[in-house]
């Protein structure tokens, strides 16, 4: 929705908001780790998956990506919908979203892969063993007297399978999306 707002709606300060968003993208995750930890603690979400979900829900990088894609959609389509009497949300839901399918699939896959492989977020935010994610879980094979490499390799392969399945299901959209969005890795 942020992408839609930034690309198609005219409002005062749009350029400022956009440039701020770009500026914030340059800050590395580690720099904001302590403030984010304090925020999560204050919200009472420490040591829960909700903390990770909340942090993962918002990303300026993907908003930027979607904004670029939506900017390429011709305004005539939106005006036509408006002429037919569609309201703000109706245009977004019935016109914008279906047209953005390839980029949404791409964003979905990339975000899924990043979150699946994320080590730092779960390391800091989770404490109970039952809630650990796969990258953290694989650390268990690293024991005091050496790494159980064979088991770790097995776990890595098992961890890759869902990613492969996802990619194979959505690969048509991804390839289109990558070509359009110019995204790497």
């Amino acid at each position, binding site marked *: 929705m942020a992408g839609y707002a930034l690309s198609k709606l005219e409002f005062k300060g749009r350029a400022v908001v956009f440039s701020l968003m770009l500026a914030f993208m340059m800050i590395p995750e580690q720099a904001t780790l*302590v403030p984010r*930890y304090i925020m999560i*603690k204050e919200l*009472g979400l420490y040591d829960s998956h*909700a903390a990770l979900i909340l942090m993962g829900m918002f990303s300026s990088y993907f908003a930027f990506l979607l904004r670029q894609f939506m900017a390429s959609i011709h305004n005539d389509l939106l005006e036509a919908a408006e002429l037919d009497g569609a309201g703000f949300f109706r245009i977004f839901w019935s016109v914008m979203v279906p047209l953005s399918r390839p980029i949404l699939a791409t964003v979905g896959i990339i975000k899924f892969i990043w979150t699946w492989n994320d080590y730092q977020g779960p*390391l*800091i935010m989770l404490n109970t063993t039952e809630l650990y994610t796969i990258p953290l879980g694989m650390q268990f094979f*690293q024991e005091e*007297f050496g790494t159980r490499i064979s088991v770790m390799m097995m776990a890595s392969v098992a961890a890759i399978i869902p990613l492969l399945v996802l990619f194979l299901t959505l690969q048509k959209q991804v390839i289109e999306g990558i070509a359009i969005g110019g995204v790497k890795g």
Partner: protein
Amino acid sequence: MKKTSLLLTCLLLILSITACGSNSGGNDNKSATNAPAANEKKEQPAGKEKIKFYTFKASKPEEPIYQAVQAYNESQDKVEVEYVSLVQNSDSTDFMKKLDILIGSGEVVDVFMTGNEEELLERASRGVVEPLNSFFEQENVKPEDEYNKVVKLDSNIYGLLTSSTQWFTVFNRDHLEKAGLELPEMGWTWDDFREYAKKLTMDGHYGTYFHTWGEYANIIAYTERPNPQLDANLNPIFDDPSFKYFFELRRVMEQEDKSAEPYADVLASNYHVLQQFFAGNASMLAVPSYAVRAGLNLEKFPHDFQMVYAPVPRSVDSNDIGMTNISGAGVAIGAKSEHKQAAYDFIRWVTKEASKYSKDIPSYKGADGEALIKEFFKDNTDLIDTESLANTLFDPRNKMPDSFSVPYGSELKTIVENGMSSYMLDNRSFDEVKAMMTEEVKKVVDANK
């Protein structure tokens, strides 16, 4: 109309997130807290002080330090210690990361453990560790009398050692007997070490093994110098003849004698420091004393030979015999703790009694080391020769250099490791490598002045 409905939707979303977040029994987030979370006072059951002990060991019932904490809680009822395990795989680096974030965000840390002294010193230099001098004075005890080493920075004592890990040389008894060699006596030199390694190289196994750690670049700097990289004025000591000697010794042992596994192979194979020794591919190893306990772990290191022990060799031109390096895992009190006296009593207890559970030699002078060793390993005499172990660890001639540490010690160690890497792999001359290391160390020291 449209704008208001948009605003209302956004507000609704934000409120629903906050609401579903506060599921820990009505945490009042609205209270003006610009002060750190230290203001959350936990419910104190009448009389008992509660302190939190952060560690990198797992919170499993088999974990020795866990059992030690349970024992402490049962042995007295004024203080209850909560065992908080931040990682489950004993990775002290990940643990320190999490601990730093906890401390940085204002969480009150009462007692915490560290993997080694350098980690403790780093935190001490940032001001988050409580100095213990006043507690010792109150107890009317001189720390030097009680412990053979404490973690000091300037004149403040910041932490105690829970165990005493001492460097020695461990031998594979079968290989030693096969080569017809006697166990070396205290006072043997690194030249003797080279001879032994040559004689022990046979039957497809190497005489010895050198790991990739910074200590193995020059063990003499660790056992005989106050600081492995710096002198008292914080200048690098790479002009010290021991560096040239040891670097050349490593090269000659690898290339001419072929008594040690090539450094390139060691790097590529990612061995554990004890792996090749227990696999029977190296007959002797200069290593810290945790090798003893590791030897009991037959699942990780299957072997059936007995380990015999000798002191670490001395440098050829030194007249001091018995010098070795002693260090251990640290334990300390957080500066913001509100139960400092209770925390102090707890860490004193840990340094004296936890060794029963962890089977490590305590750093506490009052413990009878020989008796402890016989007690710990009485069922394992087929794997551990307790006599030579006790003789090596508790020889009255054992002494440590009057050492000092710097908070950025681990950075300096990495510089030396890289120097050794370059020397062995790129075949450079020692003077080139020495110049490189000197420059890098000076940079780090200046950056930290």
